[in-house]
């Protein structure tokens, strides 16, 4: 009697195991199938940029198969990289981004240190305020800011509108709150014993920050730097509103306003410009993906 039950039970259990692993295999196959579909969806626009950037305008207007390059040429790249105007956009973007990253880190690292470690009157409110500021979108502020800078120009004679350096004042409003917020998270995760030891050894607050906190939270600093760079490189609204002369434009606005002339779209050059404009963030992402993702997820996971 007992043997019968065992005999009965054994095969069913075996079959069940077999079906489970078969289920797993199918689940895996389906996962890959859908991942391939999603990857195609994700990569179609950038790949299409690349395909079009390798075509001559004659080939584009001949309306051959858009997904294939029959006569690859680098003339779009040569054309853009030898154009002073385009190099000017690239240069402006680079200068603005580098300055903004520096300003952002100089403001947000000490502030985050003070907010994370040195409790003072109103520090908790200020930390919350920083986070709230991060939630205020630039689309809410561009009109009053535009008017503000116009008024400043009228009163003091300091012309800020239509100068690339106005962006150095504007971009930190987008980068500083978030960078401060994630640096508070990173600094708060450093064990208290570490800075207590530094204080006992007679370090000043500034020394504690530069000798202990910055080296220990270095991954966080890289993540914040990457964030500040990508935000200032990609920003579109502020330069569109505040700069108009071609020699003051940054990449995104420059490509759109100077390469699109009326109804004439030189798509080969536009796609080349877009690809070159997307290149710096993509290169940073390719090499520092883990930091990039850490910065991305830190906003919500730390706090």
């Amino acid at each position, binding site marked *: 009697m007992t043997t019968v039950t065992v005999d009965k039970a054994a095969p069913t259990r075996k079959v069940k195991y077999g079906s489970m692993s078969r289920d797993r295999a199918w689940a895996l196959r389906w996962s890959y199938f*859908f991942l391939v579909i999603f990857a195609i969806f994700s990569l179609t626009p950038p790949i299409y940029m690349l395909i079009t950037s390798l075509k001559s305008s004659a080939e584009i207007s001949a309306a051959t198969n858009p997904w294939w390059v029959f006569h690859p040429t680098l003339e779009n790249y040569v054309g853009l990289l030898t154009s002073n105007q385009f190099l000017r956009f690239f240069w402006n973007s680079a200068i603005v981004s580098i300055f903004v990253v520096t300003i952002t880190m100089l403001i947000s690292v000490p502030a985050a240190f003070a907010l994370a470690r040195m409790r*003072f*009157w109103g520090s908790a409110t200020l930390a919350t305020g920083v986070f709230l500021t991060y939630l205020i*979108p630039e689309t809410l502020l561009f*009109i009053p800011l535009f008017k503000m800078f116009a008024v400043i120009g009228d009163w003091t004679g300091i012309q800020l509108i239509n100068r690339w350096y106005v962006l150095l004042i504007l971009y930190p409003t987008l980068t500083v709150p978030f960078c401060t917020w994630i640096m508070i998270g990173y600094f708060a995760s450093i064990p208290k014993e570490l800075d207590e030891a530094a204080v006992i050894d007679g370090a000043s607050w500034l020394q504690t920050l530069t000798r202990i906190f910055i080296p220990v939270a270095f991954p966080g600093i890289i993540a914040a730097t990457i964030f500040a760079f990508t935000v200032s490189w990609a920003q579109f609204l502020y330069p569109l509103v505040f700069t108009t002369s071609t020699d003051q434009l940054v990449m995104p606005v420059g490509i759109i306003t100077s390469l699109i002339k009326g109804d004439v779209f030189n798509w080969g050059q536009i796609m080349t410009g877009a690809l070159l404009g997307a290149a710096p963030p993509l290169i940073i*992402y390719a090499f520092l993906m883990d930091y990039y*993702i850490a910065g*991305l997820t830190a906003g919500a996971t730390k706090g």
Partner: protein
Amino acid sequence: MADVALQPNRGAAQAARKRSSLHKMLKRKSTVAFLMTLPLILLIATLVIYPAFYALHLATLNKSMQRFVGLSNFEFLFRRETFWLVVKQSCIFAITAVVFKALLGFIIAHFVHNIPAKGQRKWRGMLLVPWVIPPAMSTLAWLWLFDPSYSAFNYTLSFFGIGPIPWTGDAMWARFSVILVNIWVGAPFFMIMYLAALKSVPEQLYEAAAIDGANWWQRIWYVTLPMMRNIIAITTLFSLIVTFANFDIVRILTAGGPLDHTHIFATWAFRIGIEGSDIPLGASVSLFMVPILAIAAIFILRDINKRGNEA
């Protein structure tokens, strides 16, 4: 030994006492902290808080900004059909895009989580590319893919006998295209957040559920979703704010057209305030974003505080 060590300290303290009180104040912890946060406070006060209130002031002026007109800018907006069109479109745009981004992100995160850990990095890397490219640049690629006469999508669809689709020419299709591009840009963000959250769900919970005989749907509903609730809430609310305030995609893809049928608050405010140089009216339009942003912000803050208390 201890006395010897303390002696110089005491001397230093006495010397310090003799120094000016200003110097002492500068050494106090709260003063140092205040000085360290001062640039941040100044930045936020002058370039975020002040402009926000300045917008309120601007909204009560007439077009030449010389006369106080009270609420008549808002009255004017309420009487305009385009305004209600923009309200409707902003809501449709934000809600549809966020829902689909959240769903797609959730599904993709599951698929990435399903495959062996070795390959996950590669797939994650590929799937996050749309988020990394500056939206202004990638929208140009979409604009070219949607081109009325050279559309690569229409070229492909023509093989299936599907006629040329007016991607940006027809009101409904233009709305669809704008939302599609927004989903394309935003879904990877959800994917990466959900993937991080999925990894933090303890494996034992799934084992326990499997022993209790839960099927895959019950595992998601009773284990995954409750464990990810907080991340889902924060990510969705955050994305709602960003999507509602979106500018780049709509501006480049359709510039609000055809016939204002894709305008959302930000693009319409730009059209009126900067291009039409009616700054007060533009400011009034952009102020309409505040209520929904405030509601989302309150909920996010509540969640963040809750997490802070748990920790």
